[in-house]
């Protein structure tokens, strides 16, 4: 239950950070980093699958695009990580970055598919393409950094949690 609540608030905060700060910089979807990170640290992969559904639903509900774009992106991203993990050791700096790029590509693909008529005939096609390229470049340079940043945040939370638990245990002995 604590894990579900944590994910709910953490994802909400990530979406808020993305909406208010990162979108203005043309940043890619940082929820992809969290999904990949959570897959790597979670023992129970079903939880990651559920996280993808939840994150996709949350993102689709709060975005102005076609409903289902993010749900599809995250589920296919999860599927690709899952299948690849049988053949590759994903805990490798190169693979982490490559999977980040794969996530951005999947995201872009579904976004394009849902609005293909609009994008193809758009006068903004070049602009949209350059924005997308910028996302890929950002991803190449920052996916790994964010991955380790999330790791640090999780370690800190676990430390605080252990500290509280030990204090509670001491109190209950008294």
């Amino acid at each position, binding site marked *: 239950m604590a894990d579900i609540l944590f994910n*709910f*608030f953490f994802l*909400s*905060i990530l*979406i*808020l950070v*993305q*909406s*208010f700060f*990162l*979108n*203005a910089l*043309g*940043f890619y*979807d940082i929820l992809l980093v969290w999904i990949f990170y959570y897959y790597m640290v979670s023992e129970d992969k079903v939880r990651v699958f559920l996280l993808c559904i939840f994150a996709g*639903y*949350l*993102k*689709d*509900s*709060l*975005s*102005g*695009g*076609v*409903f*289902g*774009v*993010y749900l*599809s992106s995250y589920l*296919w991203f999860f*599927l690709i990580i899952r299948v690849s993990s049988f053949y590759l050791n994903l805990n490798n700096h190169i693979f982490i970055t490559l999977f980040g790029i794969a996530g951005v590509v999947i995201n872009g693909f*579904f*976004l394009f*598919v*849902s*609005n*293909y*008529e*609009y994008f193809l005939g*758009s006068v*903004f096609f070049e*602009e*949209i393409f350059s*924005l997308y390229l910028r996302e890929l470049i950002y991803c190449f340079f920052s996916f790994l950094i964010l991955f380790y940043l999330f790791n640090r945040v999780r370690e800190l939370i676990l430390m605080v949690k252990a500290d509280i638990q030990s204090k509670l245990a001491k109190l209950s002995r008294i």
Partner: protein
Amino acid sequence: MFSKKKFIQLVVIVFLLINIAALIAAGRGGGKIQGFGAFGLDLFGPVEHVLSKITGSVEKIWMNYFSLVRLSSENNELLEEIKQFHSKETLYKEVVLENERLRRLLKFSKKIKPEYIAAEVVGRDSVKWFNTIIINRGKDSGVDLNCPVIVPEGVVGQVIKVSRNYSKVLLITDRMSGVDCLVQVSRGRGVVSGTGSEICIFKYILRKFDIQVGDNVVTSGMDGIFPKGLRVGEVTRVSKKDSGIFQDVDVKPFVDFEKLEEVLIILNLPDERKDG
């Protein structure tokens, strides 16, 4: 017939194709899946509301500090502006009365007074490809799809998704937005479309119209959504190519979308919209 590996590959391909087809279908329908998406909006709207309030408060404290610095000079400027507005108001009242008299004389139909409802902006689009905002009014307050959303400065956008207590508004700066407009002076008509940035483009405006930088652009009321005469923006660039029947015109909206906090939603249909 198939090996297990081949079968799995086939299933994955079929699922991918179904997924793509479903998204294309949803996209063609305008992405307006009301029930499922609307439920999500109701579920996550309050969380977004609380979190954006916290962010907003921090931002306000920061901005208030800076605004204190230039308060005195701004106050003098505003006092000057008020004086000018007083004289303009008298003129405006005269024109309104004259207009009413003339309408009665010509037996024009009575204009429906727009019914407004105020709403608070509780969130922004989580995806940079779209320019939308979330407001804390929904079906329970009488909001419906396509309701125009405005602020005193001008047009904000239109409602594209409604849940019980929240609505999503497509801003006029979004690439998919289009508002039928007029240039106030020359009466040249066209469509103001968003570009994803703070500048909109005025499409399909014939080159025969004399448009100047600084001209005001207002809604024409011909799109069946926005009532006639709402302020949209100001012309910032005009360019006429050697050939072609249209001219290129850029419009800067009067509304500062970054600072939007409260908006007004027009609930009833004025006569122009009904006619449209």
